């Protein structure tokens, strides 16, 4: 199923998926999404205020992301520092926060799977592994 773009006609939230959300998560209006083009979506998103995110902000964002999950950011701060350096280098040089421990193939869909945080919960280094971690070790199973 191909993903498409959707815009909330009330608050202009943008959704990218195979179907629109029934309830807009921002304005809570029901059945508010209309399909738009990729170009329209880019215009809406590109016209918003800049929201620069430095390494510290990203570190805080991924810590919030892990709260309530069965995994957490690796307590090894030195390792996290090195990985985040790579993530930001990759964003600067290659456009996305790609995992520093894998290489993009230049296939768009495949490469999106390498953007940090990736869905490591399905990977053999994490799934069903008691002390599992993502391939790079940025995320580890919470003890």
């Amino acid at each position: 199923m191909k993903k498409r773009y959707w815009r909330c006609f009330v608050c202009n939230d943008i959704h990218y998926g195979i179907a629109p959300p029934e309830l807009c998560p921002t304005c809570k209006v029901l059945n508010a999404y209309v399909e738009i083009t990729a170009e329209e979506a880019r215009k809406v998103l590109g016209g918003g205020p800049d929201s620069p995110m430095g390494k510290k902000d990203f570190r805080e964002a991924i810590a919030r992301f892990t709260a309530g999950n069965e995994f957490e950011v690796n307590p090894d701060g030195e390792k996290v520092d090195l990985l985040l350096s790579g993530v930001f280098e990759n964003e600067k040089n290659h456009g996305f926060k790609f995992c520093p421990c894998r290489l993009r193939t230049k296939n768009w869909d495949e490469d999106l799977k390498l953007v940090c945080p990736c869905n490591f919960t399905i990977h053999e280094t994490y799934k069903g592994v008691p002390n599992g971690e993502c391939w790079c070790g940025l995320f580890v199973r919470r003890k």
Partner: protein
Amino acid sequence: MALLMFYGRECPHCKKMLPLVEKLEQDTSLRFDKREVWHDEKNADLMRSYLEIIAPKCGHQLRVPTFLNTETKDAMCGEVDLEKLKDWAAKA
């Protein structure tokens, strides 16, 4: 025998493996051609050219560190101890 090591400058597993590879090179006649892939596009393209050999052995992805024997068309990826690296590299 042609042994390659693909690694990333900011990959902690690679950082751990590089000294082991150097130790193996000191102790044996084995030599690895070490290629950094995130800051050198030629090296990245070289790694991509071996996708069909590497991916089946590495979670269907291009992961680093990856060790590749271009003659036997065998690959191994991730952090391993010196013995395992030696055994893998010595396989004809």
